[in-house]
């Protein structure tokens, strides 16, 4: 789907450790997004990017940072993971001039 991959697909880490999730796309899309999905909350936007080195915060950005040094890669970093950050993380891209988004397969992160 839209050439989006996420790595790792699963990760278990301990509280207080840094974690970086990677989203990679192959089709040169300008807009990329990071969401977290938790039961009862749907998809909540963490950060998004509208170009290389251009990023902005979403509704749940506290405790997360992002970087985009190349068009194809959008990294999400948890500087010091907490148990409340246990979640499924989805990366998405916006396709073309429409607002429709296409999602990667997701990363399941468990913080113990």
């Amino acid at each position, binding site marked *: 789907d839209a050439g989006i991959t996420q790595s790792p697909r699963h990760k278990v880490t301990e509280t207080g450790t840094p974690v970086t999730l990677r989203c990679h796309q192959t089709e040169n899309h300008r*807009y990329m997004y990071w969401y977290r999905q938790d039961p009862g909350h*749907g*998809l909540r*936007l963490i950060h998004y990017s509208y170009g290389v080195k251009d990023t*902005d915060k979403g*509704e749940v950005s506290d405790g997360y940072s992002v970087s985009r040094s190349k068009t194809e890669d959008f990294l999400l970093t948890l500087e010091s993971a907490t148990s409340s950050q246990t979640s499924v993380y989805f990366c998405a891209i*916006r396709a073309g001039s429409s*607002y*429709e988004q296409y*999602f990667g397969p997701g990363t399941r992160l468990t913080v113990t």
Partner: protein
Amino acid sequence: GQQVMQIPQYQHVQEGEDFTTYCNSSTTLSNIQWYKQRPGGHPVFLIQLVKSGEVKKQKRLTFQFGEAKKNSSLHITATQTTDVGTYFCAGKARETSGSRLTFGEGTQLTVNP
């Protein structure tokens, strides 16, 4: 900030019954989208509605956008087991810059064969 509410949260139906999920926004939307997520999968784009009062159909699925562009619905006629999953609406508020979407909490549909 913008809120998008979706009801019901869960719906269990017998195969062949109809299903409807409703989406309501706290602000006027410039467009609304619908996504489907199968269990264990990722959200998949279904459709986008842009015009006030717009109705679109995809086989057994009917999507509507309200006249005031603050609500939407998805109706499935004669559900099948392949319809199982969570259906999300997502809206872009008119006053929001960029391309941010706000997602509803989703309606989880189970279909008993």
